[in-house]
């Protein structure tokens, strides 16, 4: 189930939080962004080890939390991965695995774009 840890550029630039500039959220958004590389590594570890149960839990938590930090698109993509993992169960066939791999790569790519900086031009 190995995948590329650096799956290459994914379309789109930096992804700013909807709450950039909200004083109540500045610290939390920064923390979310700072911790994102660990989350990404943990998700990739689960994927490489075939630990789909833990990967689903991570996607579930990311789905629940991302919107709260002002990154709803990350949450939507995490929700798609969670749904994909739920649909295939524990022993996915190769076609399902390919689809899941795409979803993981897309989610990881989007996660790597998050930034605590306000949107350019804001």
């Amino acid at each position: 189930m190995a995948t590329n840890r650096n799956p290459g550029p994914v379309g789109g630039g930096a992804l700013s939080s909807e709450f950039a500039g909200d004083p109540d959220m500045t610290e939390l958004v920064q923390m979310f962004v700072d911790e994102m590389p660990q989350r990404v590594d943990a998700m990739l570890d689960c994927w490489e080890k075939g630990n789909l149960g833990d990967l689903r839990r991570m996607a579930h938590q990311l789905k629940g939390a991302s919107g709260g930090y002002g990154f709803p698109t990350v949450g939507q993509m995490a929700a798609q991965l969670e749904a994909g993992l739920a649909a295939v169960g524990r022993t996915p066939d190769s076609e399902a695995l390919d689809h899941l791999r795409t979803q993981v790569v897309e989610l990881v790519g989007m996660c790597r774009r998050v930034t605590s900086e306000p949107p350019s031009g804001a």
Partner: protein
Amino acid sequence: MSNNENKPLVLLIDDSIDVHRLLSARLRHEPVRLVSLTRGVDGLEHVRRETPSVILLDLDMPDMDGFEVLRALKDDQATNNIPVIVLSGLHGSEDKVTAFDLGATDYVTKPFDLAELRARLRAALRLDRLLKLLAERADVDGLTGLGNRAHFNKRWAEKVAECRRYGHALSLAMIDIDLFKKVNDTFGHPAGDEVIQGVARLLQTTCRSPDVPCRFGGEEFALIMPNTGPRDAEMVVERLREAMEQIEWPRHPDHRVTLSAGLVGSDSSCGDVTCDQWLERADQNLYAAKHGGRNRVVASDIQRACPLTKAA
């Protein structure tokens, strides 16, 4: 007791640290105290130690899931009235039906809109207050929200018994609004009600947390001050009297309203002095305050002031 401890407790049980952080930040300005736990079993243990006003409960948790926690809460008579808002990533109507059938008050799906969650939390806190009020209704005065005469009688008997048994200090103040009839006759009954409610608010804000303010009847209030001798109690009531005369009433800004109080207290065991004898003595002091010119506090020590103690 700090201010924070007086705020209603909201218990969050969710295995996601992100949800803990987000709610902690977003509820920072709400008048609540948030305690966050990651496991259902810890949540149930906490609820047994300290009853929350509202529980925010995640469904999808490892070990003990939210449904199990909800079932345990609703099976226990001590916890079954606590409003529970389910926070869940499970969007299926089957999960919602199960949660509501188990006794959940509300169901919010993740990712949640935090402004909406705050509004739902406020609604649940209102529900909690109403449920508690309903439970205490027999003891609550409708106009002021303070304990009524029945409530006073119960609490007063408890406190006198404690004073007698353990030698705890105790004081009682009977507080009366001066010339209240004049307020009613001159400015109307709504103005009179406003003054009564104002005194109740003042009692609630001026008193310390162990004090028990009650509406004794009409324009008369009783204030039980446990673990407080007459000197300290006099300071509390004096503070109340001073605050009262500063109030500018919206319906009659040029007419200030004052309070008179009769206070009696004991620094140690009150011996065989009965509940009624305490009241009688406090009433005598109130009468003295009225006849001394009103807007004053007359205080005395129950042991010295009540000869019935020595006779017993």
